[in-house]
């Protein structure tokens, strides 16, 4: 590796010499390693670059793509409001999805066959049916249950009840659909994470008298994070875009508002581009976050040095540790 960078070693000189297996004089052995020339690769690079430039050119100068419209709507209030809803939907449904996922994963790993079966049925159903179908179903919940109430089940007395049509707005239906669906996927991710942790860890925790809940939260889950984080990042990025599905139930998200706009002004491509640019911004930010978090939890990660550095920098803390 270092040889290649060696100053003074003329890179161009080597290929010119005739190929030989003869052993050069000893002092020359350390001199240089050059790359074998690969003309095919250069051709491929050139072709790819040309194609990319041509594609970009045809799109950019296309008179049917109204860049002025794109510019006009990119920061439009309606669009920004939709963007806010998209972010809100993603964050809340991912958060709920994690809660459901951890719960269902723990049920799946329980000793009780009833709990295992219940959890299995949940993931089976919600991973097995299209999200689009689930969203439309939640939106039309009133058709199945016109009244939602809290009270004694099986036609017992009710404490409170609501009209389903009033409770289940587009946003609520979207949240229900997205988080319950996400929970099923998260359950599988969390389960795989928990199972990746050495069973000896559980026994070590048990041997010092920790409860199952303590073992899970203090020992198992922190270690499972390494396995959970990468697919979780993918789920998050995927969710940013999946929220666009709620446009079919008037979810008021970025896609819904873009659709409403182009149905009125017929600028379909321009508004799709406006929405796409925002989705790209969101997923790019999420990817950067994903990389940062992954590095933090990767197997070979350096221990959290930052904390020790902080302890040395903050005088109060250092003093406290010194007296301890």
């Amino acid at each position, binding site marked *: 590796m270092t040889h290649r960078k060696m100053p003074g070693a003329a890179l161009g000189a080597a290929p010119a010499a005739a190929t030989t297996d003869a052993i050069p004089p000893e002092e020359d052995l350390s001199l240089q390693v050059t790359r074998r020339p690969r003309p095919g690769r250069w051709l491929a690079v050139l072709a790819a670059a040309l194609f990319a430039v041509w594609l970009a050119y045809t799109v950019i100068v296309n008179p049917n793509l109204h860049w002025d419209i794109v510019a006009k709507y990119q920061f439009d209030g309606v669009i920004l409001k939709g963007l806010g809803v998209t972010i809100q939907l993603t964050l809340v449904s991912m958060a709920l999805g994690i809660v459901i996922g951890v719960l269902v994963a723990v049920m799946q790993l329980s000793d009780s066959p009833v709990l295992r079966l219940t959890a299995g049925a949940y993931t089976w159903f919600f991973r097995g049916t299209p999200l689009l179908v689930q969203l439309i179903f939640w939106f039309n919940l009133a058709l199945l249950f016109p009244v939602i109430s809290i009270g004694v089940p099986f036609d017992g007395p009710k404490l409170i009840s609501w009209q389903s049509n009033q409770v289940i707005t587009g946003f609520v239906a979207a949240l229900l659909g997205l988080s319950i669906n996400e929970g099923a996927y998260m359950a599988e991710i969390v389960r795989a994470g928990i199972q990746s942790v050495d069973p000896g860890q559980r*026994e070590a925790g048990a041997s010092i*008298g920790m409860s199952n809940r303590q073992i899970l939260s203090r020992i198992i889950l922190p270690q499972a994070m390494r396995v959970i984080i990468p697919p979780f990042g993918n789920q998050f990025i995927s969710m940013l875009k999946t929220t666009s599905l709620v446009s079919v139930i008037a979810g008021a998200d970025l896609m819904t508002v873009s659709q409403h706009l182009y149905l009125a002004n017929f600028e379909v491509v321009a508004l799709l581009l406006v929405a796409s640019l925002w989705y790209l911004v969101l997923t790019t930010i999420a990817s950067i976050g994903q990389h940062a978090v992954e590095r933090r939890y990767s197997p070979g990660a350096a221990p959290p040095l930052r904390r020790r550095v902080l302890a040395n920098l903050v005088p109060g803390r250092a003093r406290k540790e010194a007296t301890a």
Partner: protein
Amino acid sequence: MNDVILRARGVRKRFGATEVLKGIDLDVRSGEVLCVIGPSGSGKSTLLRCFNHLEQIDAGRVWMDGELIGYEQHGPSGHVLRERRPRDIRRQRERIGMVFQRFHLFPHRTAVQNVMEGPVAVKGLSRVQAEKQARELLDHVGLADRADHYPGQLSGGQQQRVAIARALAMEPALMLFDEPTSALDPELVGEVLGVMRDLARSGMTMVVVTHEMGFAREVADRVLFMDQGAVVEAGTPELLFTDPRHERTRAFLSTVL
């Protein structure tokens, strides 16, 4: 001799079709070091794990200080054993420290955090108190300068010494060692045995499953030889190592000594 702290009678355990413990009787006295030796697969480790209820037993009884471990007796003559409430099992485990063959340190915690974990999470000690105690314990096992290292940054011998400190942090009345040096490189065995020797001298009651015959001979008050899920014979190290009564003991010793 002192009082019996741990008593086992007729302990049986099967995994599927194979019976790994075929009715074990055993007494451990307070302050005693009992070494359990025997070929692999003889049930030594399983027996140890029955003592702190990491394994459920199929028959028999284990008492610690007169209290049945892991189970409570039901029925008119106390014939029915029912598993205790989790809270009671945890209370019993607090008094029994365990050191594992493969250490099982918590990799996401530093050495000192590993040792603090039990006192903080289980005993409810303040972090300041627990850390003070943990650093003292690490000093005892010769690792004061490694306290802030993660397990991945420690050698096997150092990890096992942290594991011993972690078990001791719960101030147990009995320590179980499950082949504590079997996963170590040969040159690291000595430092772990040294810590165990000091612990024995300090009067700790210990049950040690081991292949280290030298350690058993030097430190044990009694040695117990197990084979095929049963206790073949037990006695002082001098007696068992120099004049074993059973052919199976003799055959085993001739392969390891």
